[in-house]
């Protein structure tokens, strides 16, 4: 494991509130734009999708790849970010 990124720690450290989707780990400007186009402009919308998918890692990653054409690493980072955030605040 390469460790955690500062973006990951910042997101997991506090409630997401109205944070943008680009503040999720693994989601940059490009993927953020695609997600916004798909209607997932806020982080909590991606979280909602993550919860709708019942926290299933495989399905969530598959969804990420389908919606925003994320790579496996990007999808994994986003999943870990949301999963750990749920561990802390949900």
């Amino acid at each position, binding site marked *: *494991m390469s*460790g*955690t990124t500062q973006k990951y*720690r910042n997101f*997991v450290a506090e409630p997401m509130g109205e944070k943008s989707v680009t503040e999720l780990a693994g989601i940059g400007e490009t993927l953020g734009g695609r997600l916004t186009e*798909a*209607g997932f402009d806020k982080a909590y919308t991606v979280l909602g*999708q993550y919860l*709708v*998918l*019942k*926290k*299933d*890692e*495989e*399905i969530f990653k*598959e*969804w990420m790849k*389908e*919606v925003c054409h994320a790579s496996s690493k990007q999808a*994994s980072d986003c999943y*870990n970010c949301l*999963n*750990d955030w749920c*561990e802390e605040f949900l």
Partner: protein
Amino acid sequence: MSDGLDALSNKELLARCRQYGLPVIPVTDSTRNVITRRLRAAMLGTPLNKSQTQKNANSATTKKSTPRRETIHAEKVNNNTRERQNQSRRTIAHGLDNVSLSGRSVQTTTTVSDVGSQSEDDDYYMVQVPDVGYSKPTQTPPNREDERRMRRSVSLTKSGVLTTSYTREVDAPRYDELDEVNEPTSFTYERPRVSHAPPVHSSPSSYEPDYRRTFATDLNQSRPHLTQTQLNSTSYLDADYNQYSTPKSYESPLRSATNPTPRSPFTSTPESTQPRQRQTVSGSSPSWPAGRLIHPTTKVDTLYPKLDNLYDRQHRQTLPSTGSHRPMDVDTDSEPDEPQLSPSSRLSSNTRPQMRRPLVRQNPQNGPMQQFGELVRALDRQYHLRYYLLLTVLVMVATMIYVVVTPS
């Protein structure tokens, strides 16, 4: 697609998912495509991807309801690997804040006393090593070590507490037993304590048996009567000082405790007379009259002992010879050499000195003249009456010579 999955409604897709054992996920517009793809792969038997193939091969229904960290099934190798990666990531997040490796070493040093438990901890760690191997090797083991260290520390704390409590429990009952034994005035239990006391304090061999007895009595009664202990210690010092010249001189002030007249502040408590009686027993000489059981054969005593002796004589003549209720009897309890009396004849543990009365009574030769002589000797020894008397006589003679020689 030609399979008609796209034409199915959300409920139908959900039913198909249940039919093929896929995870039951709410079918929405955002999830419909994913569910359709997975359902199609399940129907055709073609793997969507490598991990998805294994997941479809295994029971996916159990995975959806299983929490991420609770169970680790051997059948879910890939999924578990990813989950462990997630766990290791969390572990790292906590590991940055909390020290794991250094904490383990510290714990090892602190648990040196408990060798068995420590070895058990090491064994447990070795057993758990393969279990950790599938995840990140550098980070997950410290996490498990921290968990075991916490559990380990709890068990060690319990053991230490138990040991300490055991020690105190052993000490406390002894003290209680001693007090309880003193209360019922049972002599059978007091004997071992008296014999046991001298070696504990390691009294020198040069001490007299009287001194030992007094010291043993202090051990037995020091806790319930702190004032008495101080008196006893003071009496020891006096005894040591008087051993060279007159070992019984210190007894005289305490002697007044037996008398009903409040000469000294010790008269209120009968226990205060213990040191005096012990010394009396040790110094008892055959020359004393029958009524003076407690007094030693001192020649240097002050006026008080003599007056006390006189009082004792009168008091013993008036009272019967039982004397078990007297406070003077309290002192002889500490003597281990003395034969024990029946518990029924004693009102309290203070009645032991009764055995010494016959020893003193064996010498009824002392009369009033001898008593007076002893008194005079005592006064002379204390106040130097001879010197003053001689000086007075010399002055008188000088005066007479001066009167005679000088012409009036």
